[in-house]
Protein backbone atom coordinates (compact mmCIF):
# COMPACT_ATOMS: atom_id res chain seq x y z
CA UNK A 1 0.00 0.00 0.00
CA UNK A 2 1.37 3.46 -0.88
CA UNK A 3 1.71 5.60 2.21
CA UNK A 4 0.02 8.99 2.36
CA UNK A 5 3.09 11.09 1.65
CA UNK A 6 1.34 14.36 2.57
CA UNK A 7 0.65 13.00 6.02
CA UNK A 8 4.04 11.37 6.51
CA UNK A 9 5.98 14.44 5.38
CA UNK A 10 3.99 16.75 7.63
CA UNK A 11 4.57 14.51 10.60
CA UNK A 12 8.29 14.32 9.82
CA UNK A 13 8.50 18.11 9.73
CA UNK A 14 6.72 18.21 13.09
CA UNK A 15 9.25 15.75 14.54
CA UNK A 16 6.49 13.20 15.08
CA UNK A 17 7.43 10.18 12.91
CA UNK A 18 7.94 6.69 14.24
CA UNK A 19 11.26 4.99 13.56
CA UNK A 20 9.81 2.92 10.72
CA UNK A 21 8.10 5.92 9.13
CA UNK A 22 11.29 7.98 9.26
CA UNK A 23 13.27 5.19 7.62
CA UNK A 24 10.66 4.70 4.92
CA UNK A 25 10.53 8.42 4.17
CA UNK A 26 14.32 8.74 4.02
CA UNK A 27 14.69 5.80 1.66
CA UNK A 28 11.96 7.18 -0.58
CA UNK A 29 13.40 10.70 -0.58
CA UNK A 30 16.63 9.23 -1.95
CA UNK A 31 14.89 7.27 -4.68
CA UNK A 32 11.88 9.27 -5.80
CA UNK A 33 12.34 12.82 -6.94
CA UNK A 34 8.61 13.59 -6.81
CA UNK A 35 8.49 12.76 -3.10
CA UNK A 36 11.69 14.73 -2.45
CA UNK A 37 10.13 17.71 -4.24
CA UNK A 38 6.92 17.39 -2.22
CA UNK A 39 8.99 17.26 0.95
CA UNK A 40 10.80 20.49 0.02
CA UNK A 41 7.49 22.11 -0.91
CA UNK A 42 6.14 21.37 2.55
CA UNK A 43 9.31 22.70 4.21
CA UNK A 44 8.91 25.81 2.08
CA UNK A 45 5.27 26.15 3.11
CA UNK A 46 6.27 25.89 6.77
CA UNK A 47 8.69 28.78 6.42
CA UNK A 48 6.19 30.89 4.46
CA UNK A 49 3.37 30.24 6.95
CA UNK A 50 5.60 31.17 9.84
CA UNK A 51 6.50 34.43 8.11
CA UNK A 52 2.84 35.21 7.38
CA UNK A 53 1.69 34.40 10.88
CA UNK A 54 4.30 36.60 12.50
CA UNK A 55 4.25 39.36 9.90
CA UNK A 56 7.97 38.91 9.54
CA UNK A 57 9.33 40.40 6.41
CA UNK A 58 12.11 38.68 4.60
CA UNK A 59 15.08 40.78 3.73
CA UNK A 60 13.96 40.74 0.11
CA UNK A 61 10.60 42.22 1.03
CA UNK A 62 12.22 44.94 3.09
CA UNK A 63 14.48 45.80 0.19
CA UNK A 64 11.62 45.83 -2.24
CA UNK A 65 9.57 48.28 -0.23
CA UNK A 66 8.84 51.49 -2.01
CA UNK A 67 10.70 54.46 -0.60
CA UNK A 68 8.28 57.31 0.19
CA UNK A 69 7.47 59.45 -2.80
CA UNK A 70 8.80 57.02 -5.38
CA UNK A 71 6.05 54.94 -6.81
CA UNK A 72 7.28 54.39 -10.33
CA UNK A 73 9.45 51.65 -11.76
CA UNK A 74 9.29 47.92 -11.89
CA UNK A 75 10.21 45.66 -9.02
CA UNK A 76 13.48 44.81 -10.70
CA UNK A 77 14.35 48.43 -11.19
CA UNK A 78 13.57 49.33 -7.64
CA UNK A 79 15.55 46.41 -6.38
CA UNK A 80 18.69 47.30 -8.26
CA UNK A 81 18.06 51.01 -8.40
CA UNK A 82 19.92 53.96 -6.95
CA UNK A 83 18.18 53.78 -3.59
CA UNK A 84 19.52 50.33 -3.04
CA UNK A 85 22.43 51.43 -0.89
CA UNK A 86 20.20 53.32 1.52
CA UNK A 87 17.67 50.53 1.78
CA UNK A 88 20.41 47.96 1.93
CA UNK A 89 21.96 49.70 4.91
CA UNK A 90 18.59 49.90 6.66
CA UNK A 91 17.86 46.26 5.92
CA UNK A 92 21.31 45.18 7.04
CA UNK A 93 20.74 46.96 10.29
CA UNK A 94 17.33 45.34 10.78
CA UNK A 95 18.49 41.82 10.01
CA UNK A 96 21.60 41.87 12.11
CA UNK A 97 20.09 43.86 14.95
CA UNK A 98 17.34 41.23 15.11
CA UNK A 99 19.85 38.38 15.01
CA UNK A 100 22.01 40.03 17.66
CA UNK A 101 19.02 40.70 19.89
CA UNK A 102 17.76 37.14 19.65
CA UNK A 103 21.21 35.80 20.37
CA UNK A 104 21.56 38.19 23.28
CA UNK A 105 18.17 37.09 24.61
CA UNK A 106 19.12 33.47 24.17
CA UNK A 107 22.40 34.22 25.95
CA UNK A 108 24.71 32.89 23.32
CA UNK A 109 27.20 33.88 20.69
CA UNK A 110 26.85 32.53 17.17
CA UNK A 111 28.37 29.09 16.82
CA UNK A 112 31.16 29.22 14.28
CA UNK A 113 33.11 26.01 14.68
CA UNK A 114 33.03 22.58 16.22
CA UNK A 115 35.51 20.25 17.91
CA UNK A 116 35.19 17.23 15.63
CA UNK A 117 37.76 14.94 17.13
CA UNK A 118 40.55 14.88 19.67
CA UNK A 119 43.31 12.38 20.33
CA UNK A 120 45.32 12.24 23.56
CA UNK A 121 44.35 15.85 23.96
CA UNK A 122 45.25 17.65 27.15
CA UNK A 123 43.74 21.09 27.20
CA UNK A 124 44.92 24.05 29.20
CA UNK A 125 42.26 26.38 30.46
CA UNK A 126 40.30 27.72 27.52
CA UNK A 127 37.57 30.25 27.03
CA UNK A 128 35.71 27.61 24.98
CA UNK A 129 34.45 24.06 25.59
CA UNK A 130 36.87 21.36 24.45
CA UNK A 131 34.83 18.18 24.56
CA UNK A 132 34.44 16.31 21.31
CA UNK A 133 31.30 17.58 19.58
CA UNK A 134 31.39 20.94 21.36
CA UNK A 135 30.13 23.89 19.36
CA UNK A 136 32.44 26.86 19.50
CA UNK A 137 31.70 30.55 19.44
CA UNK A 138 34.45 33.15 19.34
CA UNK A 139 37.21 32.39 21.86
CA UNK A 140 40.56 30.76 22.52
CA UNK A 141 41.65 27.12 22.67
CA UNK A 142 44.87 26.01 24.32
CA UNK A 143 46.06 22.50 23.69
CA UNK A 144 48.96 21.31 25.84
CA UNK A 145 49.40 17.89 24.28
CA UNK A 146 47.89 15.65 21.64
CA UNK A 147 45.90 16.70 18.60
CA UNK A 148 42.42 18.08 18.04
CA UNK A 149 40.46 18.62 14.86
CA UNK A 150 38.23 21.69 14.56
CA UNK A 151 35.72 22.19 11.75
CA UNK A 152 34.75 25.75 10.90
CA UNK A 153 31.23 26.62 9.78
CA UNK A 154 32.29 27.23 6.23
CA UNK A 155 33.90 23.79 5.99
CA UNK A 156 37.59 24.36 6.66
CA UNK A 157 39.13 21.81 9.00
CA UNK A 158 42.07 22.57 11.20
CA UNK A 159 44.09 19.99 13.05
CA UNK A 160 45.75 21.56 16.04
CA UNK A 161 48.91 20.02 17.49
CA UNK A 162 49.82 20.56 21.13
CA UNK A 163 51.34 22.64 22.50
CA UNK A 164 49.34 25.24 20.63
CA UNK A 165 47.08 28.16 21.22
CA UNK A 166 44.50 29.22 18.66
CA UNK A 167 41.75 31.82 18.68
CA UNK A 168 38.54 30.96 16.83
CA UNK A 169 37.61 34.30 15.27
CA UNK A 170 34.92 33.81 12.59
CA UNK A 171 33.34 31.03 10.50
CA UNK A 172 36.32 31.19 8.15
CA UNK A 173 39.04 32.77 10.27
CA UNK A 174 41.33 31.63 13.06
CA UNK A 175 44.39 33.11 14.71
CA UNK A 176 47.31 30.85 15.58
CA UNK A 177 48.91 32.48 18.59
CA UNK A 178 51.62 29.84 18.99
CA UNK A 179 52.14 26.22 17.99
CA UNK A 180 51.26 24.28 14.86
CA UNK A 181 48.23 23.46 12.80
CA UNK A 182 47.45 21.72 9.56
CA UNK A 183 44.50 23.09 7.57
CA UNK A 184 42.38 21.25 5.07
CA UNK A 185 40.24 23.65 3.07
CA UNK A 186 37.58 22.32 0.69
CA UNK A 187 36.50 24.54 -2.24
CA UNK A 188 33.47 25.91 -0.38
CA UNK A 189 35.70 27.34 2.34
CA UNK A 190 38.13 29.00 -0.06
CA UNK A 191 39.42 32.16 1.55
CA UNK A 192 39.92 30.47 4.92
CA UNK A 193 42.34 32.66 6.81
CA UNK A 194 44.94 31.84 9.44
CA UNK A 195 46.45 34.83 11.18
CA UNK A 196 49.82 34.44 12.88
CA UNK A 197 51.61 37.08 14.97
CA UNK A 198 53.56 38.29 11.94
CA UNK A 199 51.64 37.19 8.85
CA UNK A 200 48.23 36.33 7.47
CA UNK A 201 47.69 33.23 5.33
CA UNK A 202 44.75 33.18 2.98
CA UNK A 203 43.93 29.82 1.58
CA UNK A 204 42.82 29.21 -1.97
CA UNK A 205 41.60 25.64 -1.59
CA UNK A 206 44.39 23.52 -0.25
CA UNK A 207 46.14 21.61 2.49
CA UNK A 208 48.84 23.47 4.34
CA UNK A 209 50.70 23.46 7.62
CA UNK A 210 51.85 26.41 9.67
CA UNK A 211 53.92 26.70 12.83
CA UNK A 212 54.63 29.84 14.75
CA UNK A 213 56.00 31.05 18.02
CA UNK A 214 54.34 33.87 19.88
CA UNK A 215 57.01 36.34 18.75
CA UNK A 216 56.15 35.78 15.09
CA UNK A 217 58.79 33.38 13.76
CA UNK A 218 56.80 31.06 11.57
CA UNK A 219 57.05 28.53 8.80
CA UNK A 220 54.42 27.67 6.20
CA UNK A 221 54.34 24.50 4.19
CA UNK A 222 51.86 24.02 1.33
CA UNK A 223 51.18 20.34 0.80
CA UNK A 224 48.70 20.88 -1.98
CA UNK A 225 47.00 23.86 -3.60
CA UNK A 226 47.76 27.51 -3.08
CA UNK A 227 48.20 29.86 -0.15
CA UNK A 228 48.55 33.62 -0.20
CA UNK A 229 50.93 35.01 2.39
CA UNK A 230 50.62 38.60 3.58
CA UNK A 231 53.33 39.80 5.93
CA UNK A 232 52.45 42.38 8.56
CA UNK A 233 55.23 44.57 7.13
CA UNK A 234 52.97 45.39 4.19
CA UNK A 235 55.11 43.73 1.52
CA UNK A 236 53.32 42.53 -1.63
CA UNK A 237 51.54 39.18 -1.14
CA UNK A 238 53.50 36.03 -1.80
CA UNK A 239 51.77 33.06 -3.41
CA UNK A 240 52.91 29.62 -2.33
CA UNK A 241 51.84 26.61 -4.33
CA UNK A 242 52.06 22.82 -3.92
CA UNK A 243 55.25 21.69 -2.21
CA UNK A 244 56.48 25.20 -1.51
CA UNK A 245 57.54 26.51 1.86
CA UNK A 246 58.29 29.86 3.44
CA UNK A 247 59.97 31.03 6.60
CA UNK A 248 58.75 34.15 8.28
CA UNK A 249 60.36 36.38 10.88
CA UNK A 250 58.64 39.24 12.66
CA UNK A 251 60.38 41.57 10.19
CA UNK A 252 59.99 39.83 6.82
CA UNK A 253 59.47 36.72 4.75
CA UNK A 254 62.82 35.01 4.22
CA UNK A 255 63.89 34.06 0.69
CA UNK A 256 62.00 31.04 -0.55
CA UNK A 257 63.34 27.76 0.74
CA UNK A 258 63.21 24.48 -1.15
CA UNK A 259 60.57 21.96 -0.17
CA UNK A 260 61.57 19.58 2.56
CA UNK A 261 59.47 16.52 3.32
CA UNK A 262 60.10 16.97 7.04
CA UNK A 263 59.41 20.63 7.65
CA UNK A 264 61.19 22.05 10.64
CA UNK A 265 59.43 24.05 13.28
CA UNK A 266 60.36 27.70 13.63
CA UNK A 267 62.22 27.10 16.87
CA UNK A 268 64.74 24.99 15.02
CA UNK A 269 64.49 26.71 11.68
CA UNK A 270 68.22 27.07 11.40
CA UNK A 271 70.24 24.45 13.25
CA UNK A 272 73.42 26.52 12.95
CA UNK A 273 71.91 29.24 15.09
CA UNK A 274 71.39 27.27 18.26
CA UNK A 275 71.61 29.04 21.58
CA UNK A 276 75.29 29.53 22.06
CA UNK A 277 75.31 31.64 25.15
CA UNK A 278 73.30 31.37 28.32
CA UNK A 279 73.44 32.06 32.03
CA UNK A 280 71.09 31.47 34.94
CA UNK A 281 70.39 33.37 38.12
CA UNK A 282 72.85 30.97 39.78
CA UNK A 283 75.71 32.03 37.50
CA UNK A 284 78.36 34.38 39.03
CA UNK A 285 76.74 37.24 40.95
CA UNK A 286 73.26 36.17 39.83
CA UNK A 287 70.38 36.07 42.29
CA UNK A 288 66.68 35.20 42.37
CA UNK A 289 64.27 36.44 45.02
CA UNK A 290 60.81 37.76 45.63
CA UNK A 291 59.45 40.51 47.84
CA UNK A 292 56.10 40.40 49.56
CA UNK A 293 53.73 42.81 51.22
CA UNK A 294 53.52 42.69 55.01
CA UNK A 295 50.35 40.57 55.39
CA UNK A 296 51.92 37.54 53.70
CA UNK A 297 54.22 36.63 56.60
CA UNK A 298 53.06 33.02 56.86
CA UNK A 299 52.81 32.18 53.19
CA UNK A 300 56.40 32.00 52.00
CA UNK A 301 58.55 29.60 50.00
CA UNK A 302 62.24 28.74 49.90
CA UNK A 303 62.11 26.89 46.56
CA UNK A 304 59.78 28.90 44.33
CA UNK A 305 59.60 32.62 43.70
CA UNK A 306 56.11 33.90 44.49
CA UNK A 307 54.15 36.28 42.28
CA UNK A 308 50.73 37.75 43.01
CA UNK A 309 48.65 40.87 42.55
CA UNK A 310 45.17 40.99 44.01
CA UNK A 311 42.71 43.75 44.76
CA UNK A 312 42.91 43.21 48.49
CA UNK A 313 45.97 45.10 49.65
CA UNK A 314 48.77 43.45 51.60
CA UNK A 315 49.15 40.19 49.68
CA UNK A 316 51.20 41.30 46.67
CA UNK A 317 54.44 39.66 45.60
CA UNK A 318 56.97 40.65 42.94
CA UNK A 319 59.86 38.59 41.60
CA UNK A 320 63.38 39.96 41.19
CA UNK A 321 66.04 38.27 39.08
CA UNK A 322 69.65 39.33 38.69
CA UNK A 323 71.81 38.04 35.85
CA UNK A 324 75.57 38.42 35.83
CA UNK A 325 76.07 39.50 32.24
CA UNK A 326 79.86 39.45 32.58
CA UNK A 327 79.56 35.65 32.58
CA UNK A 328 77.66 35.70 29.31
CA UNK A 329 80.00 34.89 26.42
CA UNK A 330 79.93 37.72 23.88
CA UNK A 331 78.07 37.15 20.61
CA UNK A 332 78.67 40.21 18.44
CA UNK A 333 75.92 39.46 15.94
CA UNK A 334 73.31 38.24 18.43
CA UNK A 335 69.80 38.88 17.19
CA UNK A 336 67.64 37.29 19.85
CA UNK A 337 67.42 37.03 23.61
CA UNK A 338 65.25 34.84 25.71
CA UNK A 339 64.23 34.58 29.33
CA UNK A 340 63.09 31.07 30.31
CA UNK A 341 61.12 30.38 33.48
CA UNK A 342 59.85 27.13 34.98
CA UNK A 343 56.53 27.33 36.77
CA UNK A 344 55.86 25.14 39.80
CA UNK A 345 52.78 25.17 42.06
CA UNK A 346 53.22 27.45 45.06
CA UNK A 347 50.60 25.67 47.14
CA UNK A 348 48.80 28.97 47.89
CA UNK A 349 45.42 29.91 46.46
CA UNK A 350 43.17 28.20 43.96
CA UNK A 351 44.13 27.90 40.30
CA UNK A 352 40.50 28.19 39.28
CA UNK A 353 40.10 31.59 40.93
CA UNK A 354 40.71 34.58 38.67
CA UNK A 355 41.64 35.07 35.04
CA UNK A 356 44.72 34.58 32.89
CA UNK A 357 47.74 36.18 34.55
CA UNK A 358 49.40 38.88 32.45
CA UNK A 359 53.00 39.09 33.60
CA UNK A 360 55.17 42.07 32.66
CA UNK A 361 58.96 41.95 32.74
CA UNK A 362 60.92 45.15 33.52
CA UNK A 363 64.67 45.78 33.47
CA UNK A 364 66.06 48.09 36.14
CA UNK A 365 67.95 51.00 34.55
CA UNK A 366 69.63 52.53 37.63
CA UNK A 367 72.98 50.78 37.97
CA UNK A 368 73.13 51.41 41.75
CA UNK A 369 69.96 49.37 42.18
CA UNK A 370 71.56 46.20 40.80
CA UNK A 371 73.48 45.40 43.97
CA UNK A 372 70.50 44.26 46.04
CA UNK A 373 70.85 41.29 48.34
CA UNK A 374 68.11 38.71 48.62
CA UNK A 375 68.31 38.66 52.43
CA UNK A 376 68.10 42.43 52.84
CA UNK A 377 65.22 43.03 50.41
CA UNK A 378 61.94 44.40 51.69
CA UNK A 379 58.72 45.55 50.02
CA UNK A 380 59.51 49.25 50.24
CA UNK A 381 63.28 49.09 49.66
CA UNK A 382 63.15 46.97 46.51
CA UNK A 383 64.60 48.44 43.32
CA UNK A 384 62.21 50.55 41.18
CA UNK A 385 59.62 50.42 43.95
CA UNK A 386 56.01 51.24 43.25
CA UNK A 387 53.42 50.64 45.98
CA UNK A 388 51.17 48.76 43.57
CA UNK A 389 51.90 45.04 43.26
CA UNK A 390 51.16 45.32 39.55
CA UNK A 391 53.58 48.14 38.73
CA UNK A 392 57.17 49.31 39.01
CA UNK A 393 58.59 52.81 39.10
CA UNK A 394 59.10 53.40 35.40
CA UNK A 395 61.59 56.19 35.96
CA UNK A 396 63.98 53.52 37.19
CA UNK A 397 62.98 50.56 34.98
CA UNK A 398 61.92 49.85 31.40
CA UNK A 399 59.60 47.22 30.10
CA UNK A 400 61.39 44.45 28.19
CA UNK A 401 58.66 41.86 27.64
CA UNK A 402 55.52 40.20 28.83
CA UNK A 403 53.82 36.83 28.84
CA UNK A 404 50.52 35.31 29.88
CA UNK A 405 49.94 32.37 32.19
CA UNK A 406 46.53 30.96 31.31
CA UNK A 407 43.99 30.52 34.06
CA UNK A 408 44.45 27.16 35.77
CA UNK A 409 48.06 26.66 34.65
CA UNK A 410 50.63 26.20 37.43
CA UNK A 411 53.37 24.29 35.66
CA UNK A 412 55.31 24.42 32.42
CA UNK A 413 58.03 26.41 30.75
CA UNK A 414 57.36 30.05 29.87
CA UNK A 415 59.56 31.98 27.50
CA UNK A 416 59.89 35.68 26.93
CA UNK A 417 61.64 36.53 23.69
CA UNK A 418 61.76 40.21 22.93
CA UNK A 419 64.06 42.64 21.11
CA UNK A 420 63.80 45.04 24.08
CA UNK A 421 65.35 42.38 26.29
CA UNK A 422 68.25 41.95 23.85
CA UNK A 423 68.76 45.69 23.76
CA UNK A 424 68.99 45.91 27.56
CA UNK A 425 71.49 43.05 27.65
CA UNK A 426 73.64 44.73 25.01
CA UNK A 427 73.58 48.18 26.59
CA UNK A 428 73.77 47.39 30.30
CA UNK A 429 76.85 49.27 31.51
CA UNK A 430 77.66 47.53 34.81
CA UNK A 431 76.98 44.06 33.34
CA UNK A 432 74.48 43.27 36.10
CA UNK A 433 70.93 43.02 34.83
CA UNK A 434 68.04 43.14 37.28
CA UNK A 435 64.66 42.03 35.98
CA UNK A 436 61.41 42.57 37.89
CA UNK A 437 58.31 40.47 37.20
CA UNK A 438 54.88 41.76 38.16
CA UNK A 439 51.40 40.49 37.55
CA UNK A 440 49.67 43.40 35.87
CA UNK A 441 46.01 42.42 36.10
CA UNK A 442 44.88 42.02 39.69
CA UNK A 443 42.93 38.98 40.85
CA UNK A 444 39.51 40.31 41.71
CA UNK A 445 38.17 37.31 43.60
CA UNK A 446 39.11 35.77 46.93
CA UNK A 447 41.55 32.87 47.16
CA UNK A 448 43.35 33.67 43.90
CA UNK A 449 46.41 31.67 42.94
CA UNK A 450 49.92 32.68 43.99
CA UNK A 451 52.09 31.80 40.99
CA UNK A 452 55.35 29.97 41.69
CA UNK A 453 58.49 30.19 39.55
CA UNK A 454 61.39 27.81 40.22
CA UNK A 455 64.19 29.76 41.95
CA UNK A 456 67.84 29.07 42.69
CA UNK A 457 67.12 26.49 45.37
CA UNK A 458 64.49 24.43 43.60
CA UNK A 459 65.33 20.71 44.01
CA UNK A 460 64.56 19.64 40.42
CA UNK A 461 63.66 22.50 38.10
CA UNK A 462 66.19 24.85 36.51
CA UNK A 463 66.40 28.41 37.78
CA UNK A 464 65.50 31.37 35.52
CA UNK A 465 67.72 31.36 32.43
CA UNK A 466 68.83 34.06 30.02
CA UNK A 467 69.91 32.99 26.52
CA UNK A 468 71.36 35.04 23.69
CA UNK A 469 72.07 33.88 20.16
Amino acid sequence: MTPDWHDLIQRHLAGACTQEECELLQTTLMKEEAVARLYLQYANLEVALEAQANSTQSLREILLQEPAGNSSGSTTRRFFGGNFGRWAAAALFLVFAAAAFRQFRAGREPRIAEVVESQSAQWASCSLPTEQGSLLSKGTLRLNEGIARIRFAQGAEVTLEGPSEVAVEAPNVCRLIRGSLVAHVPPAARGFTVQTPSATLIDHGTDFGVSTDSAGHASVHVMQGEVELLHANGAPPLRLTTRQMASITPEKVLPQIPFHPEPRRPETADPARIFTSEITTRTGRGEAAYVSEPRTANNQSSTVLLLKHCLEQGYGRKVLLRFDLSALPKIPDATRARLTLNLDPSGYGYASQGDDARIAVYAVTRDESDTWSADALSWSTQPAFDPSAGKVNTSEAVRVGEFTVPRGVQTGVFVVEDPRLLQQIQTDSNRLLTLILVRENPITVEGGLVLGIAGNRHPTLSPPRLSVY
Partner: protein
Amino acid sequence: MTTRSVPPLNDQFLRLYAENEGALHAFVRSLLPTRDESSDVMQDLAVALWQGFESAREFRPWAFGVARNLVRMHLRRRARDRHVFDDQLVQRLADLAQAESEPRAAERRALECCLQKLPQAQRELVLGAYARGTRIDELAQRRGQTPMALYKILHRIRQALLECVQRTVLREQNV
Protein backbone atom coordinates in the same frame (compact mmCIF):
# COMPACT_ATOMS: atom_id res chain seq x y z
CA MET B 1 31.94 57.96 -21.62
CA THR B 2 29.93 56.44 -18.82
CA THR B 3 31.43 54.30 -16.16
CA ARG B 4 29.59 51.78 -14.09
CA SER B 5 30.79 51.63 -10.54
CA VAL B 6 30.98 48.32 -8.71
CA PRO B 7 28.35 48.23 -5.94
CA PRO B 8 29.86 48.21 -2.45
CA LEU B 9 30.35 44.81 -0.81
CA ASN B 10 27.43 45.44 1.61
CA ASP B 11 25.04 45.96 -1.26
CA GLN B 12 26.27 42.93 -3.15
CA PHE B 13 25.92 40.77 -0.08
CA LEU B 14 22.47 42.02 0.79
CA ARG B 15 21.20 41.58 -2.72
CA LEU B 16 22.46 38.00 -2.86
CA TYR B 17 21.29 37.21 0.64
CA ALA B 18 17.86 38.67 -0.05
CA GLU B 19 17.55 36.65 -3.22
CA ASN B 20 18.45 33.41 -1.48
CA GLU B 21 17.11 33.87 2.04
CA GLY B 22 13.80 32.11 1.43
CA ALA B 23 15.38 29.15 -0.33
CA LEU B 24 17.99 28.80 2.40
CA HIS B 25 15.38 28.99 5.15
CA ALA B 26 13.23 26.33 3.48
CA PHE B 27 16.28 24.11 3.01
CA VAL B 28 17.35 24.53 6.63
CA ARG B 29 13.79 23.83 7.76
CA SER B 30 13.72 20.66 5.64
CA LEU B 31 16.63 19.29 7.65
CA LEU B 32 15.43 20.21 11.11
CA PRO B 33 12.42 18.83 12.94
CA THR B 34 11.34 22.07 14.63
CA ARG B 35 10.69 25.67 13.70
CA ASP B 36 12.69 27.09 16.60
CA GLU B 37 15.78 25.14 15.64
CA SER B 38 15.61 26.34 12.08
CA SER B 39 15.25 29.96 13.26
CA ASP B 40 18.33 29.52 15.44
CA VAL B 41 20.36 28.12 12.58
CA MET B 42 19.17 30.89 10.25
CA GLN B 43 20.50 33.49 12.67
CA ASP B 44 23.86 31.79 12.78
CA LEU B 45 23.77 31.46 9.01
CA ALA B 46 23.17 35.17 8.41
CA VAL B 47 26.18 36.03 10.55
CA ALA B 48 28.37 33.30 9.03
CA LEU B 49 27.55 34.36 5.48
CA TRP B 50 28.08 38.01 6.21
CA GLN B 51 31.47 37.36 7.79
CA GLY B 52 32.68 35.04 5.07
CA PHE B 53 31.24 36.86 2.05
CA GLU B 54 33.46 37.27 -0.99
CA SER B 55 32.09 38.83 -4.13
CA ALA B 56 34.20 36.64 -6.43
CA ARG B 57 32.61 33.41 -5.27
CA GLU B 58 29.34 31.99 -6.58
CA PHE B 59 26.96 32.78 -3.75
CA ARG B 60 24.20 30.17 -3.81
CA PRO B 61 26.26 26.93 -3.75
CA TRP B 62 28.55 28.42 -1.14
CA ALA B 63 25.64 29.58 1.05
CA PHE B 64 23.98 26.17 0.82
CA GLY B 65 27.29 24.56 1.82
CA VAL B 66 27.57 26.82 4.87
CA ALA B 67 23.93 26.11 5.76
CA ARG B 68 24.60 22.37 5.55
CA ASN B 69 27.59 22.65 7.85
CA LEU B 70 25.68 24.71 10.40
CA VAL B 71 22.81 22.21 10.37
CA ARG B 72 25.29 19.37 10.73
CA MET B 73 26.91 21.11 13.69
CA HIS B 74 23.52 21.75 15.19
CA LEU B 75 22.47 18.13 14.80
CA ARG B 76 25.67 16.56 16.03
CA ARG B 77 24.38 16.52 19.57
CA ARG B 78 21.36 14.50 18.55
CA ALA B 79 22.96 12.25 15.97
CA ARG B 80 20.77 9.32 16.87
CA ASP B 81 17.52 11.22 16.44
CA ARG B 82 15.44 9.33 13.92
CA HIS B 83 14.50 12.57 12.14
CA VAL B 84 18.11 13.36 11.22
CA PHE B 85 19.01 12.64 7.58
CA ASP B 86 22.29 11.09 6.49
CA ASP B 87 24.84 13.13 4.51
CA GLN B 88 23.89 11.62 1.18
CA LEU B 89 20.25 12.62 1.57
CA VAL B 90 21.20 16.09 2.80
CA GLN B 91 23.28 16.53 -0.35
CA ARG B 92 20.39 15.37 -2.52
CA LEU B 93 17.98 17.80 -0.90
CA ALA B 94 20.54 20.61 -1.19
CA ASP B 95 20.95 19.93 -4.93
CA LEU B 96 17.22 19.83 -5.51
CA ALA B 97 16.54 22.92 -3.38
CA GLN B 98 19.16 24.90 -5.30
CA ALA B 99 17.97 23.73 -8.68
CA GLU B 100 14.34 24.57 -7.90
CA SER B 101 14.70 27.72 -5.84
CA GLU B 102 12.65 29.76 -8.34
CA PRO B 103 9.48 27.58 -8.20
CA ARG B 104 9.74 27.57 -4.38
CA ALA B 105 9.98 31.37 -4.35
CA ALA B 106 6.91 31.52 -6.58
CA GLU B 107 5.06 29.22 -4.17
CA ARG B 108 5.93 31.46 -1.24
CA ARG B 109 4.57 34.46 -3.16
CA ALA B 110 1.38 32.56 -3.98
CA LEU B 111 0.72 31.66 -0.36
CA GLU B 112 -0.82 34.98 0.65
CA CYS B 113 -3.43 34.72 -2.10
CA CYS B 114 -4.19 31.11 -1.14
CA LEU B 115 -4.59 32.05 2.50
CA GLN B 116 -7.23 34.58 1.45
CA LYS B 117 -9.12 31.82 -0.30
CA LEU B 118 -9.40 29.77 2.89
CA PRO B 119 -12.57 30.10 5.00
CA GLN B 120 -11.90 32.75 7.64
CA ALA B 121 -11.98 30.31 10.58
CA GLN B 122 -9.40 28.07 8.93
CA ARG B 123 -7.20 31.02 8.03
CA GLU B 124 -7.26 32.30 11.61
CA LEU B 125 -6.59 28.84 12.95
CA VAL B 126 -3.54 28.17 10.79
CA LEU B 127 -2.03 31.61 11.36
CA GLY B 128 -2.69 31.23 15.07
CA ALA B 129 -0.91 27.90 15.08
CA TYR B 130 2.17 29.42 13.44
CA ALA B 131 2.25 32.55 15.60
CA ARG B 132 5.38 32.74 17.68
CA GLY B 133 4.97 31.22 21.13
CA THR B 134 1.88 29.17 20.27
CA ARG B 135 1.77 25.67 21.72
CA ILE B 136 -0.44 23.21 19.92
CA ASP B 137 -1.63 21.49 23.11
CA GLU B 138 -2.70 24.83 24.62
CA LEU B 139 -4.40 25.91 21.40
CA ALA B 140 -6.27 22.58 21.27
CA GLN B 141 -7.38 22.99 24.88
CA ARG B 142 -8.68 26.50 24.19
CA ARG B 143 -10.66 25.11 21.28
CA GLY B 144 -11.96 22.18 23.31
CA GLN B 145 -10.23 19.63 21.10
CA THR B 146 -7.58 16.98 21.58
CA PRO B 147 -4.13 17.87 20.20
CA MET B 148 -4.44 14.93 17.80
CA ALA B 149 -7.70 16.30 16.37
CA LEU B 150 -6.09 19.73 15.93
CA TYR B 151 -3.04 18.21 14.20
CA LYS B 152 -5.38 16.50 11.76
CA ILE B 153 -7.20 19.74 10.94
CA LEU B 154 -3.90 21.53 10.43
CA HIS B 155 -2.69 18.70 8.16
CA ARG B 156 -5.72 19.15 5.98
CA ILE B 157 -5.36 22.94 5.83
CA ARG B 158 -1.68 22.67 4.91
CA GLN B 159 -2.42 20.14 2.23
CA ALA B 160 -5.12 22.40 0.81
CA LEU B 161 -2.75 25.38 0.88
CA LEU B 162 0.00 23.41 -0.83
CA GLU B 163 -2.33 22.25 -3.57
CA CYS B 164 -3.56 25.83 -4.01
CA VAL B 165 -0.05 27.28 -4.35
CA GLN B 166 0.92 24.49 -6.77
CA ARG B 167 -2.11 25.31 -8.93
CA THR B 168 -1.43 29.05 -8.74
CA VAL B 169 2.20 28.68 -9.81
CA LEU B 170 1.25 26.34 -12.63
CA ARG B 171 -1.34 28.84 -13.84
CA GLU B 172 1.21 31.67 -13.74
CA GLN B 173 3.60 29.58 -15.80
CA ASN B 174 0.95 28.93 -18.41
CA VAL B 175 -0.12 32.55 -18.72
